[in-house]
């Protein structure tokens, strides 16, 4: 690590000391926003490229770009995936502010001649291990139960796999699902699933863009080991008032958006609710019709432009799942986020974003039995202040720097009972923590063929009183208790994350990239479940629980074929993880003040090769994604200290995605996925205890469930042209050949024949057809 820092610092310093002063020639800046022509939405990651000098930049997450070049005349190209590129001659003899609007591409009915510039973003960009999926593509893919879901769509890309059948939970490059930083308009989301993972909390109507970073992670992000999933809500149409929505078999949604204050601002509100429970009510069986099970969510956002240099945003998300089983028990849970932001242009080269963010996840659990009742309540909240600055030093050099201060508050559990419920009231101690970070990164085009991006993130995590801190012996027995008073520093972990990426253009149609990324994680999810249940327990780092760490190195080769008709990439990675957490056998984490005594610690490693082959153009387009990977764990206290496969160890993971645009209205798509069965622990024998058989286990995760595979089909009928009310239909079939993929395999004694033991497979879905009606006005 010392070596890389020694390399980094001079690079960094040289960039700071000599920004854009390489030549005496006068320089000017072209800057502005790139937006969608129809609805005024900012396009994030759109590229701006000066052809004469082969220099370019990309819009930031607010749609802003800035390109500083020597005075001269340039052919500038603005482009964005799925949009018609815009090319214009610009005489750069003064600073120019130019906001441009791009038009959505019509369907490619005829084969278009692909210009080189149109797709070689892949080769130029200083991103790696980054996946973005376009909204147009997502809309054409088959879906389960009529809900488009970005989290399920990105599972079709290499290195990203589903936690389980139908699940929106993600395993990224061998990490577990709690090691992904999920941001919705910059606010952290602690539980991104509805209905135990069958839906994600992201209403696809309300989402502008999704980006997942699984390899190189920009130093402006930190706090999770595996990946960053950055989701941005729509700003709202600032051209005209409009709406869209859909009616599905299990849920419906509606979105309204429009401009206000003479187009100085725009707003968006979107809502969604499932109604499976309404069908339950129609069932005459009183055992069923008194149950309820639904979720809803609500997104709202507004922005307002104050002059040309300032813009303010306010956005929020509110979602809730509710589940009631007769009058006996109920549980409800959900996330709330609120983000206030201010974008300010100090100059056409210095961009500031200030954010104030509040995020809350909580759940309530109630049991009732006559007069006796029991209620459990828990939350995790945080308040977050962020300053992010971007300095566009020159056409070849961009600096990003900023700071973040994040206050966490956890209530692990509070239980109260009434009547003769035999449980004492318990109020667990709240956990207080303060996380701070500063970062600096530099993106530098060293030569026309070599670009680098490097930086550092320095973060501290402090656990604060009031709190009783327990010490444990090796067996987990409490040996000592220390009391810390309010705001007293219990422990501070300072950490340094280096990030580095180099992109070498090896030919006009290929490039080679190499990166390494260090990450730390301070909040740990205690859950040995796979499905993201509402009763998740997050614990902060403490004297006993060290921050999780990872260091990933990766390399990749990216190339275009047949005049950019096809693009392909191969990436390999190796990731080392430390201070990983698991439970002891039979751990008690329920309302346990000394929960840390129930944990064991170890290390892990993950490595793999990812192949992606994409056809972006033509009537038939789509991709093939294949991942060959391993994810292993080593815990002294598990599996007799022998290395074992993590549950997310998927050796082969293949996805085929094909979309065929028949004509302007009809398009068809098919996806086929195949992956190695989960690593699971099966018995290697049995023995008798009293009068029942008990399974005998010899190794952790030593077996595999059968391979998973599934074919889905979709047909979309688009709207007729030039109508005010545009309706479209989606017909999907999930699991076309009705494979009974194992959700779980259990072992039990046969009913009425206690002498016989048998294996039983539980499968959730057979063939599931759905139809969804969508509208837009």
């Amino acid at each position, binding site marked *: 690590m010392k070596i890389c820092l020694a390399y980094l610092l001079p690079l960094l310093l040289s960039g700071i000391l000599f920004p854009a002063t390489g030549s005496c020639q006068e320089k000017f800046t072209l800057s502005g926003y790139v937006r969608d022509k129809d609805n005024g939405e900012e396009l994030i990651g759109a590229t701006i490229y000066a052809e004469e000098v082969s220099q370019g930049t990309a819009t930031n997450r607010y749609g802003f770009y800035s390109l500083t070049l020597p005075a001269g005349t340039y052919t500038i190209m603005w482009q964005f995936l799925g949009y018609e590129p815009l090319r214009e001659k610009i005489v750069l003899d003064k600073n120019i502010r130019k906001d441009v609007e791009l038009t959505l591409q019509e369907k490619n009915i005829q084969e278009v001649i692909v210009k080189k510039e149109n797709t070689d973003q892949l080769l130029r960009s200083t991103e790696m291990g980054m996946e973005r999926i376009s909204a147009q593509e997502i809309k054409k893919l088959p879906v389960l139960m009529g809900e488009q879901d970005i989290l399920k769509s990105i599972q079709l890309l290499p290195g990203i796999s589903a936690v389980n059948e139908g699940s929106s939970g993600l395993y990224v490059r061998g990490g577990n699902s709690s090691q992904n930083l999920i941001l919705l308009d910059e606010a952290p989301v602690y539980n991104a699933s509805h*209905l*135990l993972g*069958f839906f994600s909390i992201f209403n696809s109507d309300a989402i502008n863009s999704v980006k997942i970073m699984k390899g190189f992670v920009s130093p402006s992000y930190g706090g999770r080991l595996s990946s960053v999933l950055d989701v941005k809500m729509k700003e709202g149409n600032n051209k005209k008032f409009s709406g869209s929505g859909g009616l599905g078999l299990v849920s419906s949604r509606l979105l309204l958006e429009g401009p206000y204050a003479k187009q100085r601002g725009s707003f968006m509100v979107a809502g969604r609710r499932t109604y*499976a429970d309404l069908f339950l009510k129609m069932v005459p069986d009183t*055992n*069923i019709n008194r149950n309820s*099970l639904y979720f809803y969510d609500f997104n709202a956002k507004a922005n307002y432009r104050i002059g040309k240099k300032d813009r303010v945003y306010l956005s929020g998300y509110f979602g809730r799942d509710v*589940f009631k*089983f007769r009058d006996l028990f109920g*549980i409800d849970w959900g996330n709330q986020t609120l983000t206030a932001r201010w974008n300010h242009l100090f100059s056409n080269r210095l961009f500031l974003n200030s954010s104030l963010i509040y995020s809350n996840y909580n759940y309530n659990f109630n049991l009732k*039995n006559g007069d006796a009742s029991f209620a459990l309540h828990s939350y995790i909240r945080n308040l977050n202040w962020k300053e992010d600055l971007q300095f566009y030093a020159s056409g070849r050099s961009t600096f990003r720097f900023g700071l973040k201060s994040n206050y966490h508050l956890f209530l692990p559990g509070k239980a109260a009972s009434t009547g*003769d419920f*035999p*449980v004492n009231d*318990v109020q667990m101690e709240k956990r207080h923590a303060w996380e701070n970070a500063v970062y600096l990164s530099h993106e530098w085009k060293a030569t026309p063929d070599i670009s680098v991006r490097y930086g550092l993130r320095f973060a501290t995590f402090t656990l604060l009183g009031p709190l009783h801190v327990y010490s444990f012996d090796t067996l987990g027995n409490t040996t000592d208790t220390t009391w810390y008073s309010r705001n007293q520093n219990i422990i501070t972990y300072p950490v340094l994350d280096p990030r580095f990426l180099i992109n070498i253009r090896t030919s006009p149609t290929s490039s080679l990239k190499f990166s390494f990324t260090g990450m730390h994680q301070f909040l740990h999810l205690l859950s*040995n*479940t*796979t*499905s993201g*249940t*509402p*009763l998740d327990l997050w614990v902060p780092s403490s004297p006993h629980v060290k921050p999780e760490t990872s260091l990933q190195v990766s390399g990749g080769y990216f190339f275009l074929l047949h005049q950019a008709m096809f693009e392909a990439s191969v990436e390999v990675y190796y990731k080392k993880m430390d201070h990983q957490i698991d439970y002891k*056998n*039979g751990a*008690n984490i*329920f*309302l346990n003040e000394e929960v840390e005594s129930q944990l064991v610690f170890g290390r892990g490693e993950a490595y793999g090769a990812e192949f992606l082959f994409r056809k972006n153009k033509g009537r038939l387009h789509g991709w093939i994604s294949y991942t060959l990977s391993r994810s292993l764990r080593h815990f002294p206290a598990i599996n007799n200290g022998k290395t074992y496969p993590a*549950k997310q160890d998927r050796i082969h993971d293949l996805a085929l995605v094909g979309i065929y645009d028949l004509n302007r209205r009809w398009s068809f798509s098919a996806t086929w996925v195949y992956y190695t069965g989960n690593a699971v*622990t099966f018995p*290697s*024998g*049995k*023995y*008798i*205890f*009293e009068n*029942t*058989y*008990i*399974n*005998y*286990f*010899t190794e952790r995760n030593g077996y595999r469930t059968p391979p998973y595979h599934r074919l889905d089909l979709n047909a979309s009928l688009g709207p007729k042209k030039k109508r005010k009310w545009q309706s479209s239909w989606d017909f999907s079939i999930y699991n076309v050949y009705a494979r*009974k993929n194992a*959700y*779980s*395999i259990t*072992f*039990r004694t046969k009913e009425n024949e206690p*002498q*016989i*033991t048998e*294996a*039983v*497979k*539980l*499968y*959730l*879905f*057979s063939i599931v057809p759905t139809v969804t009606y969508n509208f837009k006005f």
Partner: protein
Amino acid sequence: MKKIFAILFFTLLFTSCEEVIYVPLNSADPAIVIEGQVTNYPGPYQVRITTTTDFYDPSTVPPVNNATVYVEDDLGHSWYFTEQRPGYYNNDQFTGEPGRTYSLNVKVKDRFYHATSYMPPPVSIDSLDQGYFAGTRFADAGYYIILYFTDPPDTTNYYRIRLYKGDQAGTVIYVLDDQLMDGNPVNLLLFGSAYEAGDTAVVELQSIDEKVYRFLLTLSNVNASSPSGPEYTPANPETNLSGEALGYFGAVSLSRDTIILTHSK
């Protein structure tokens, strides 16, 4: 608890299904399994010694013969157990006393196995009651037992409850500790074991020590007759026996009560 939610969700919303399948499983080397109990009720007490067998093997588990088995208390008394039938070793010469610590010693072909267990004072059953439950996919319709007892305050208590239908022992393992209910009157609906009117139900409230509790708790997680989902990683229960044996030795004190179930709704 999480598992129950998952199953409820799936069955309410989706058409989940079960299917018996064949999964190829390794065969492990046989391991020794020891199960023994001393109680505050007069014996004979029994120690059973068997070995593990292949999962799909339909024959009874192999007994272990010719073992040397004896129990000692903390006053230096010892009692030898004799093999009554293959794998079963008995002794009727003593009665366990609450407050004493007992240890089990087993020798099988030059290998020694040892466990120690403390017999806590018994906790008496206040009363038994019955409740009717209409039944769901997850639980049979029928009468369920409600157990009332009072947890002694200011001590850590661990319990196991055993249910019998007549003299037939049930297979569900109920264990609990008093972490959240120290000193409280306790009422427990013993879910999972349905009775019919006219049945005689015997309820045994066993006071156990922490290690026996840990054994039974971790055992109930992998009980072959209880449904285990993908929700946790199964592992062998924590035993109090040395020498890499499976099973346990427990000194338990128990109190018993009986209820005859009647028609009521």
